[in-house]
């Protein structure tokens, strides 16, 4: 099974934001007393006049970002995804409804803040964000994708929710990796089933595909970094060509990537779907991120089991 090197994802985000901030003077950064955690410190050191620490005041942070956007700036408002949940009304009314060009960075998402426990986990953010009109939702799969996405998000003429992990993500892509918002990427081709994954679950899906290959199962893997707008054409194509779908995400199975894929397929091309994610439950504090993913239904074995189950359903 492939093992992946890891890279410091948060630091890479911080560097990418500062690098882009040098090119585009309209980029500003806001944070709510977690700048060292989300590594907007690099931006702050280079552009102190464009950096605003609002204190532990997440709702005020979003509204201040809204005002900056109204004034022609491109604000990146970054804090823990879990704490952004208290700003959902700000995001709905003043960002999504008012269509203000705010980039919301939800850091420490999923179970990645393993040491701080369920209060700091965020397993519902994708569901909440993608239910909002005008919202774009991006869940990058590795640090290279994070780095490549930052300029695209800044240049994107609208609201983005950018979901980030706390931890050093396994490195999947090299510098030649090319991303486009709203376009899924075929990471591995195959014919029996398709695994549609994002975030931390992409590397685990690649490992699962290797295991499945030894059992004679040909797996296609899609990196669905953009949950909204969803690449429905690619999903339909995969359903037609492989006839079975597994989704894999570090999020509740209610309302996230799996639901989004199922919404498309149930309407346009019904095939069996199995969803890998956290069941409708809160997790626990753990010694590390990986063990929590394993415990809460997102292990490599969980993906292979889901693949075998969906294959059986396909052949039934």
């Amino acid at each position, binding site marked *: 099974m492939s093992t992946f090197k890891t890279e410091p994802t948060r630091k890479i985000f911080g560097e990418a934001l500062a690098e882009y901030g040098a090119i585009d003077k309209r980029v500003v950064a806001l944070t709510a007393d977690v700048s060292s955690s989300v590594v907007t410190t690099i931006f702050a050191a280079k552009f102190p006049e464009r950096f605003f620490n609002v204190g532990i005041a997440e709702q005020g942070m*979003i*509204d*201040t970002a*809204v005002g900056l956007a109204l004034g022609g700036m491109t604000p990146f408002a970054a804090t823990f995804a879990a704490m952004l949940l208290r700003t959902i009304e700000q995001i709905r*009314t003043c960002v999504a409804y008012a269509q203000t060009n705010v980039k919301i960075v939800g850091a420490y998402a999923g179970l990645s803040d393993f040491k701080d426990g369920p209060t700091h986990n965020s397993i519902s953010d994708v569901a909440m964000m993608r239910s909002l009109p005008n919202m774009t939702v991006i869940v990058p799969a590795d640090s290279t994708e994070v780095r490549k996405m930052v300029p695209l998000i800044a240049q994107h003429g609208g609201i983005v929710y950018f979901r980030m992990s706390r931890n050093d993500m396994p490195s999947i892509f090299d510098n030649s990796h090319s991303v486009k918002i709203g376009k899924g990427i075929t990471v591995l081709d195959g014919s029996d089933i398709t695994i549609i994954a994002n975030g931390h679950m992409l590397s685990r899906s690649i490992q699962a595909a290797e295991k499945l290959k030894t059992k004679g199962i040909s797996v296609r893997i899609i990196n669905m970094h953009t949950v909204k707008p969803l690449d429905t054409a690619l999903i339909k194509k995969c359903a037609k060509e492989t006839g079975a779908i597994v989704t894999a995400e570090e999020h509740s199975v209610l309302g996230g990537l799996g639901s989004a894929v199922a919404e498309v397929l149930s309407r346009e091309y019904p095939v069996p779907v199995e969803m890998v994610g956290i069941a409708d439950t809160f997790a626990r504090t753990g010694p590390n991120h990986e063990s929590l993913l394993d415990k809460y239904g997102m292990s490599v074995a969980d993906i292979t089991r889901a693949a075998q189950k969906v294959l059986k359903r396909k052949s039934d």
Partner: protein
Amino acid sequence: MATHKHPLELQEELNKIAQELRIEALAMIHRRGQGHPGGALSAAEIVAALYFHQMRIRPKEPNWENRDRFILSKGHASAILYPALAKRGYFPEADIKDWGQIASHLQGHPDKNKTPGVDMSAGCLGHGISIGAGLGLAARISGLDFKTYVMVGDGECQAGVIWEGVMLAAKYKICNLITILDYNKVQLDGTVEEVMPMEPMKAKWASFNWNVIEIDGHDMKQVLASLDEACSCKEGPSVIIAHTVKGKGVSYMEGKAEWHYRVPTTDELKLAVEELDVNV
């Protein structure tokens, strides 16, 4: 407070406009069968002063980069804003009659993407000060000298997020942010004192290091002078605590919580217009 800039004729003209806005607001609410008269009427002098004297705006160029902004954070007072915008020429005055119809650009609460001249959508309370602070910071970064005026309600100040914005504006010394508190003492469920007391209001803002100006919000001379004073402050953000009367100008509405959201009948409207006309 300096008053030489505001001759009596100007005050009288603005007072007349305020009364006309009140009449139009009540007519709109009556016609639509929906709306918030009390908090619209309490804000009439301030809105008249802003749109017909104070603000640097170009109604034919509503998105002009360096225009002064107005955020009606207490968005339920839309019935006083819409007639002001129409009268200033942002859109035809005839549009007013369609308020709330599906095809109308005039929403229940102000919508910046539908109605020309609305600088920010509002409706859910508590957002205006942080948003105004963000606009103030954007002006600073861009080297623009526009000002942002934010009108908040007294009940609205019960929302914690208001004070998040208040802290931020003070921290960053955002002088180009002027907040006007329409302190009419009444909210939906009763008086502010009953629902959630906010006194000492002045001390609250002062303790957050804001420049505080206290006025009678129906005295045009004081309204104009306070806006000038707030604009001249260089140390940080200013709040004008405008003591007002909910439903001001209509005897049977004044100070009554039931007129936060109630529609005047045909007879009630007639009586209101008679009372307001006397003062025009």
